[in-house]
Protein backbone atom coordinates (compact mmCIF):
# COMPACT_ATOMS: atom_id res chain seq x y z
CA UNK A 1 0.00 0.00 0.00
CA UNK A 2 1.25 3.44 -0.95
CA UNK A 3 0.72 7.05 0.12
CA UNK A 4 -0.27 9.71 -2.41
CA UNK A 5 -0.13 13.50 -2.32
CA UNK A 6 -2.45 15.30 -4.69
CA UNK A 7 -1.71 18.74 -6.15
CA UNK A 8 -4.69 20.38 -7.85
CA UNK A 9 -3.89 23.40 -10.03
CA UNK A 10 -6.87 23.64 -12.38
CA UNK A 11 -10.09 25.58 -11.78
CA UNK A 12 -13.22 23.67 -10.76
CA UNK A 13 -16.00 23.68 -13.37
CA UNK A 14 -13.83 25.65 -15.85
CA UNK A 15 -11.68 22.54 -16.18
CA UNK A 16 -12.20 18.83 -15.60
CA UNK A 17 -9.11 18.69 -13.38
CA UNK A 18 -10.90 18.80 -10.02
CA UNK A 19 -13.32 16.07 -11.11
CA UNK A 20 -10.40 13.87 -12.22
CA UNK A 21 -8.61 14.44 -8.91
CA UNK A 22 -11.75 13.46 -6.97
CA UNK A 23 -12.21 10.25 -8.95
CA UNK A 24 -8.52 9.36 -8.67
CA UNK A 25 -8.52 9.83 -4.89
CA UNK A 26 -11.68 7.74 -4.45
CA UNK A 27 -10.16 4.93 -6.53
CA UNK A 28 -6.90 5.09 -4.56
CA UNK A 29 -8.74 4.86 -1.23
CA UNK A 30 -10.88 1.98 -2.51
CA UNK A 31 -7.68 0.13 -3.43
CA UNK A 32 -6.43 0.54 0.14
CA UNK A 33 -3.91 3.35 -0.46
CA UNK A 34 -3.73 6.42 1.72
CA UNK A 35 -3.81 10.12 0.83
CA UNK A 36 -1.41 12.26 2.82
CA UNK A 37 -3.16 15.39 1.64
CA UNK A 38 -4.71 17.45 -1.14
CA UNK A 39 -3.18 20.85 -1.91
CA UNK A 40 -5.12 23.44 -3.97
CA UNK A 41 -2.95 25.94 -5.86
CA UNK A 42 -3.33 28.38 -8.79
CA UNK A 43 -6.91 28.59 -10.08
CA UNK A 44 -7.82 25.38 -8.18
CA UNK A 45 -8.19 27.51 -5.04
CA UNK A 46 -11.90 27.97 -5.86
CA UNK A 47 -12.31 24.36 -4.67
CA UNK A 48 -11.70 25.74 -1.18
CA UNK A 49 -14.63 28.16 -1.37
CA UNK A 50 -17.47 27.18 0.95
CA UNK A 51 -19.73 29.47 -1.08
CA UNK A 52 -19.86 27.51 -4.36
CA UNK A 53 -23.52 27.44 -5.38
CA UNK A 54 -23.98 25.55 -8.65
CA UNK A 55 -27.44 24.79 -10.08
CA UNK A 56 -29.10 21.73 -8.47
CA UNK A 57 -28.31 19.43 -11.42
CA UNK A 58 -24.57 20.04 -11.20
CA UNK A 59 -21.90 18.62 -8.89
CA UNK A 60 -21.23 20.68 -5.74
CA UNK A 61 -17.48 20.06 -5.73
CA UNK A 62 -16.86 21.67 -2.34
CA UNK A 63 -19.27 19.17 -0.70
CA UNK A 64 -17.41 16.30 -2.37
CA UNK A 65 -14.14 17.54 -0.91
CA UNK A 66 -15.72 17.78 2.54
CA UNK A 67 -16.88 14.17 2.20
CA UNK A 68 -13.31 13.14 1.42
CA UNK A 69 -12.15 15.02 4.50
CA UNK A 70 -14.65 13.01 6.54
CA UNK A 71 -12.92 9.96 5.10
CA UNK A 72 -9.62 11.19 6.53
CA UNK A 73 -8.13 13.25 3.66
CA UNK A 74 -6.47 16.52 4.82
CA UNK A 75 -7.34 19.53 2.62
CA UNK A 76 -4.97 22.47 2.17
CA UNK A 77 -5.15 25.62 0.08
CA UNK A 78 -2.33 28.06 -0.64
CA UNK A 79 -3.38 31.15 1.35
CA UNK A 80 -1.56 33.61 -0.94
CA UNK A 81 -2.98 32.14 -4.14
CA UNK A 82 -6.43 32.11 -2.53
CA UNK A 83 -6.34 35.70 -1.27
CA UNK A 84 -5.23 36.93 -4.71
CA UNK A 85 -8.43 35.44 -6.11
CA UNK A 86 -10.80 36.52 -3.33
CA UNK A 87 -10.88 33.41 -1.12
CA UNK A 88 -10.21 34.61 2.42
CA UNK A 89 -9.70 32.77 5.69
CA UNK A 90 -10.70 34.15 9.10
CA UNK A 91 -7.45 36.12 9.58
CA UNK A 92 -7.59 37.82 6.20
CA UNK A 93 -11.31 38.50 6.57
CA UNK A 94 -10.73 40.12 9.95
CA UNK A 95 -7.88 42.22 8.55
CA UNK A 96 -10.31 43.54 5.93
CA UNK A 97 -13.12 44.02 8.49
CA UNK A 98 -15.36 41.52 6.74
CA UNK A 99 -18.22 39.93 8.62
CA UNK A 100 -17.98 36.62 6.80
CA UNK A 101 -15.41 34.33 5.26
CA UNK A 102 -15.58 31.88 2.35
CA UNK A 103 -12.57 29.79 3.41
CA UNK A 104 -13.54 27.67 6.39
CA UNK A 105 -12.46 24.55 8.23
CA UNK A 106 -11.84 21.78 7.54
CA UNK A 107 -10.02 23.35 4.56
CA UNK A 108 -6.79 24.81 5.93
CA UNK A 109 -5.24 28.07 4.68
CA UNK A 110 -1.62 26.96 4.39
CA UNK A 111 1.68 28.17 3.01
CA UNK A 112 3.49 26.52 0.13
CA UNK A 113 5.73 25.00 2.80
CA UNK A 114 2.85 22.65 3.58
CA UNK A 115 3.16 21.31 0.03
CA UNK A 116 6.82 20.54 0.82
CA UNK A 117 5.66 18.44 3.77
CA UNK A 118 3.26 16.59 1.47
CA UNK A 119 6.16 15.66 -0.83
CA UNK A 120 7.05 13.11 1.83
CA UNK A 121 4.86 10.50 0.10
CA UNK A 122 5.33 7.72 -2.46
CA UNK A 123 3.78 9.63 -5.34
CA UNK A 124 2.76 13.19 -6.08
CA UNK A 125 0.05 13.40 -8.74
CA UNK A 126 -0.99 16.75 -10.22
CA UNK A 127 -4.41 17.50 -11.70
Amino acid at each position, binding site marked *: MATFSILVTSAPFDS*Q*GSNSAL*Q*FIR*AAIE*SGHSISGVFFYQSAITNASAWQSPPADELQLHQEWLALHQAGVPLHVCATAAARRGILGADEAQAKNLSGTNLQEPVLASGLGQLMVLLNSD*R*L*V*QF
Partner: protein
Amino acid sequence: MILHLLRSSPFSALDIAQSLALMDQDDGLLLMQDAVYALQGQDQPWFEQLQQRQGIYILKEDMQARGLSHCPSFIEQVDYSKFVTLTLTFDQVVTW
Protein backbone atom coordinates in the same frame (compact mmCIF):
# COMPACT_ATOMS: atom_id res chain seq x y z
CA MET B 1 10.35 5.53 -15.64
CA ILE B 2 7.91 8.43 -16.02
CA LEU B 3 4.15 8.22 -16.56
CA HIS B 4 2.99 11.19 -18.64
CA LEU B 5 -0.60 12.37 -18.18
CA LEU B 6 -1.83 14.16 -21.29
CA ARG B 7 -5.01 16.23 -20.78
CA SER B 8 -5.39 18.47 -23.84
CA SER B 9 -6.81 17.68 -27.25
CA PRO B 10 -3.99 17.00 -29.72
CA PHE B 11 -6.09 18.79 -32.36
CA SER B 12 -5.83 22.07 -30.40
CA ALA B 13 -2.63 22.04 -28.37
CA LEU B 14 0.94 20.97 -29.01
CA ASP B 15 1.39 19.34 -25.57
CA ILE B 16 1.33 15.93 -27.26
CA ALA B 17 4.45 16.75 -29.28
CA GLN B 18 6.25 18.02 -26.18
CA SER B 19 5.43 15.00 -24.05
CA LEU B 20 6.44 12.60 -26.84
CA ALA B 21 9.73 14.48 -27.30
CA LEU B 22 10.60 13.88 -23.63
CA MET B 23 9.58 10.21 -23.50
CA ASP B 24 12.12 7.41 -23.19
CA GLN B 25 11.44 3.93 -24.50
CA ASP B 26 10.28 2.73 -21.06
CA ASP B 27 8.07 5.72 -20.21
CA GLY B 28 4.27 5.62 -20.42
CA LEU B 29 1.57 7.98 -21.69
CA LEU B 30 -2.01 8.11 -20.40
CA LEU B 31 -4.55 9.91 -22.61
CA MET B 32 -7.14 11.52 -20.30
CA GLN B 33 -9.68 14.37 -20.30
CA ASP B 34 -9.76 16.02 -23.76
CA ALA B 35 -6.65 14.08 -24.84
CA VAL B 36 -8.87 11.03 -25.44
CA TYR B 37 -9.93 12.73 -28.70
CA ALA B 38 -6.56 11.49 -29.98
CA LEU B 39 -8.58 8.39 -30.97
CA GLN B 40 -10.04 10.44 -33.85
CA GLY B 41 -6.62 11.36 -35.26
CA GLN B 42 -5.90 8.41 -37.57
CA ASP B 43 -4.73 10.77 -40.31
CA GLN B 44 -2.64 12.98 -38.02
CA PRO B 45 1.18 12.80 -37.86
CA TRP B 46 1.18 12.34 -34.05
CA PHE B 47 -1.08 9.28 -34.36
CA GLU B 48 1.70 7.37 -36.11
CA GLN B 49 4.11 8.33 -33.33
CA LEU B 50 1.68 6.91 -30.76
CA GLN B 51 1.33 3.76 -32.83
CA GLN B 52 5.08 3.15 -32.85
CA ARG B 53 5.34 3.17 -29.05
CA GLN B 54 4.79 0.83 -26.12
CA GLY B 55 2.94 2.03 -23.02
CA ILE B 56 0.08 4.09 -24.44
CA TYR B 57 -2.99 4.04 -22.16
CA ILE B 58 -6.39 5.73 -22.30
CA LEU B 59 -8.89 6.49 -19.52
CA LYS B 60 -12.12 4.62 -20.22
CA GLU B 61 -14.36 6.98 -18.22
CA ASP B 62 -13.14 9.98 -20.25
CA MET B 63 -13.82 8.14 -23.54
CA GLN B 64 -17.33 7.17 -22.49
CA ALA B 65 -18.13 10.70 -21.29
CA ARG B 66 -17.35 12.01 -24.77
CA GLY B 67 -19.19 9.38 -26.80
CA LEU B 68 -16.03 7.64 -28.05
CA SER B 69 -16.11 3.84 -28.16
CA HIS B 70 -13.66 2.58 -30.78
CA CYS B 71 -10.12 2.14 -29.53
CA PRO B 72 -7.28 0.55 -31.55
CA SER B 73 -5.58 -2.42 -29.90
CA PHE B 74 -2.22 -0.71 -29.43
CA ILE B 75 -3.81 1.62 -26.85
CA GLU B 76 -4.68 -0.04 -23.52
CA GLN B 77 -7.97 1.03 -21.93
CA VAL B 78 -7.78 1.61 -18.17
CA ASP B 79 -10.30 2.67 -15.52
CA TYR B 80 -9.50 4.91 -12.51
CA SER B 81 -8.49 1.87 -10.43
CA LYS B 82 -5.92 0.81 -13.04
CA PHE B 83 -4.85 4.47 -13.39
CA VAL B 84 -3.92 4.43 -9.68
CA THR B 85 -1.94 1.22 -10.19
CA LEU B 86 -0.14 2.75 -13.19
CA THR B 87 1.10 5.71 -11.15
CA LEU B 88 2.83 3.16 -8.87
CA THR B 89 4.20 1.03 -11.72
CA PHE B 90 6.09 4.09 -12.94
CA ASP B 91 8.47 6.06 -10.70
CA GLN B 92 7.22 9.58 -11.35
CA VAL B 93 4.14 11.24 -12.83
CA VAL B 94 4.20 14.34 -15.04
CA THR B 95 1.00 16.19 -15.92
CA TRP B 96 0.67 18.04 -19.24
